[in-house]
């Protein structure tokens, strides 16, 4: 099962996302921003990092990369896309997901092992979790505070489109403790925590992130 990971200039967690796909049993495929060729992958991960140095706004420049034009069209037809951290920011800038990620409330970059609860298990990226399951996954960002209009928040909540929520403590001032959301169709998911950094007990605080990658593989098999 071929899963792509896009490298933009300034992507940092691309190698970790490729590793996570491999550990989950998939075939990781590196994709480069400057090509619009999706290389016959069946799903794609937009990894964390500081694409284009976060200049202008996080994700604002990457959104115009040739590969994004292919991804945006595919996503509108149900192609599974996971955006992690900077990838989430790119998805918001691309309008595949609503809202925006803004400067953390404390104005600092925060790297910590973050408790989370799973709020939606109907997406192809979260189907391997149990509803309400508690996870510990690293967050590491300077602009992770999820903000959206009151109407958008009502829409997200009423449609059950909050995928992950911060537990115990809101680390950055996100509205409704939102750590991740999905689009109405459920194929596009954006999360601020880094599941690809919680796939091995040796290097992560847990292996709680691995199910994002096993979920997508199982979803693609069952399709």
């Amino acid at each position, binding site marked *: 099962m071929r899963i792509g990971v896009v490298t933009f*200039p*300034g992507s*940092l*967690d691309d*190698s*970790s996302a490729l*590793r*996570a796909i491999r550990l989950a049993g998939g075939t990781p495929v590196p994709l480069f921003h*400057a090509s619009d060729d999706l290389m016959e992958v069946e799903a794609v991960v937009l990894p*964390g*990092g*500081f694409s*284009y*140095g*976060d*200049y202008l706004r996080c994700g604002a420049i990457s959104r115009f990369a040739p590969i994004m034009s292919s991804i945006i069209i595919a996503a509108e037809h149900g192609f599974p896309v996971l955006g992690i951290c900077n990838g989430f920011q790119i998805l918001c800038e691309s309008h595949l997901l609503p809202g925006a990620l803004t400067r953390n409330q404390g104005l*600092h*970059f*925060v*790297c*910590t092992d973050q408790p989370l609860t799973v709020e939606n298990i109907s997406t192809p990226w979260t189907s391997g979790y149990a509803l309400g399951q508690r996870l510990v996954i*690293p967050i*590491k960002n*300077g602009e992770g505070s999820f903000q959206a209009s009151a109407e958008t928040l009502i829409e997200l909540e009423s449609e059950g489109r909050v995928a992950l929520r911060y537990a115990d403590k809101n680390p950055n001032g996100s509205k409704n403790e939102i750590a991740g959301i999905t689009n109405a169709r459920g194929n596009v998911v954006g999360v601020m925590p*880094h599941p*690809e*950094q919680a*796939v*091995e007990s*040796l*290097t*992560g605080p847990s292996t709680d992130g691995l199910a994002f990658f096993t979920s997508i593989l199982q979803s693609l098999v069952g399709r």
Partner: protein
Amino acid sequence: MALDTVAIASEQPNTLQPWRELGLKEDEYSRIKEILGRRPTASELAMYSVMWSEHCSYKSSKVHLKQFGEKAPHSDALLVGIGENAGVVDIGQGYAVTFKIESHNHPSFVEPYQGAATGVGGIVRDILTMGARPIAVMDPLRFGLADAPDTRRVLPGIVAGVGGYGNCLGLPNIGGEVVFDETYAGNPLVNALCVGVMRHEDIKLATAHGTGNLVVLFGAKTGGDGIGGVSVLASETFASGKAAKRPSVQVGDPFAEKVLIECSLEIFAEDLVIGIQDLGGAGLSCATSELASAGSGGMSIQLDKVPLRDPSLSPEEILMSESQERMCAIIEPAKLSRFMKICKKWDVTATVIGEVTAGKHLEITFNGELIVDVPPRTVAHDGPVYNRPIAKPAYLDSLVPTELPTLDTPDAIKAELLSLIAAPNIADKSWVTDQYDRYVQGNSVLAQPEDSGMVRIDEQTHLGVAISTDANARWSYLDPYNGAKLALLESCRNIATTGAKPLAVTNCLNFGSPEDPGVMWQFAETVRGLADICLEMGLPVTGGNVSFYNQTGAVAILPTPVIGVLGVIQDVRARTKMGIPSAGLQLIQIGNTGDNFSGSEWAHLHGQMGDHAPTPDVGTEVRLIELLLEAQPLFESAHDLSDGGLAAALTEATLRNNIGATIGLPGEFIPGGVAAALFAETPGRVLIAVDPINLSALEVLAAKYEIPLHALGSTGGDALVINHASISLTELRAAYTETLPRLFG
């Protein structure tokens, strides 16, 4: 102003030149005239002034540093030694590792964010230049007192700068130090370490040879930032009343560096360069003269080809600019088009600015006019050497022994322990380290606050490296010779405590003014101690950095040799962590405690320095390291005892996983009593937790290595109980974690 050419310099020998303003001494200026047989041009003067600065030429330290060569132990591991951008060691399986620490102290005082950020950027480029992929960074930082007003200006900016740059490069920050002492007020120390990995065959050197090969500048365009940074900032003390020196600090663009790293690694992978040098301190002056000097000598550069961010820059400014994120490569003409293609892929500007010539001189032209014509060795390697006066400082004759309270009651134990762990030097540093990404790249096996940072090198074979940086500046103040030895031994112990074998050493020697004979004595003693201990331990020094002039007025910083030790671990899955993992384990202290209060954090808390550093017992330390490595499978956790002694180690080990401990300290058996047992900083000790069923096996090994074990108690519960003094973990955590957030927000 008219261009000052070589022809004009010959015709007009008496032109007044600003050599003094550029930091040169009169005899140094005379020497330049002697070398050239005429006065230097403005551009030559600029080059010599930056390259002969203390920062670049090591003119005050050279005579001492040569001991690292004279006393070097035999090492099969050393692939590239001192002199290149960074040393390289063999770690087996065909892998080579390069690592180095550098200082960026003065720029970080002037402009904390950019100073610290470009410090990280510079050391990362040094590692990249060796042909290696940078894999992790560490940052030993030192500040004035935590509650001093200027610390509140400097610390948040420095921490944000280290994080802002390093995080954006995708390099995990896996360790370092945060230390406060009043002598660093006005002179914060920002030391940055980077480690990189490559295959043996990929090692690159800074050399230019092969007549007709091209000199290519690639990376960021050249601007007016950082002009004279090394000569102006790093080689002078800050005196009040002088004009602001802010423009001398470079401005960093980590995104440009990240792209430069990926671009360079792709270029290296296709073997497209003959030699490579990064542009750091002294910019193009340094890169061209060092490349030419290390090669056959001849090089011609057309300075007007250098892409500029600011077109108004004069040739001297272009030569001195320390604009960041630039590299200089020597390339065969046949490989140029492939080189350019890779640069284009990463949107990196690359320009041919010259070529290697058959001559012996570095010749630089600007719009066709010859403005530099020098033997490159005289610029890069044959700078002035000073054997500066040395005198043992008077303060050493008026030191007084410590006089500290005894701990007779549970209340006294509790009160002293809580105040110690809340002291800024001991308290939890998460406020700082949570601003650094420790996870990126997915290979960080251990990161701060663990005893060493550890990175997996190979996912299939599980090979990894560990790094620790240490300094105990108060011991160095009391006894610089032994202070340096103790810092290295502590660093080795930290490596071994996590399960890795020490392999090589780097250092960053931070001192006051070399023109002060007392400071120079501290420096000489430190280098002597470090060279001796490396020989005794059989560890090669792979490189290092000297930072002088860290003083405000007549007050120098504590002598601060920061020692970095690299270790190798064959299977990272076997590493040992510092936190007690479960209840029902035996807590044991390896090694004896003495009444070593001098220079300790507890003595400092009571306003005392004491009168002597501990005497290192190298034989015992070597056996301790052997014991740690052999007994590692028996440990459930292990934590080195250093700053704050056993009290700090117990606090950190219990709070890590929130598992308490109950211990008894029979004070009558320890010189200094219970107070020493808890707070003395006797070296050569480790706190371990072991399963009771492994105890006898451990005792056998300890006996084999003649290392004493002391049973302290057992793990479990939700309190730390010491001789009937019970401190709930909640109370312990509050004391330990609240200090830095309270001070810095």
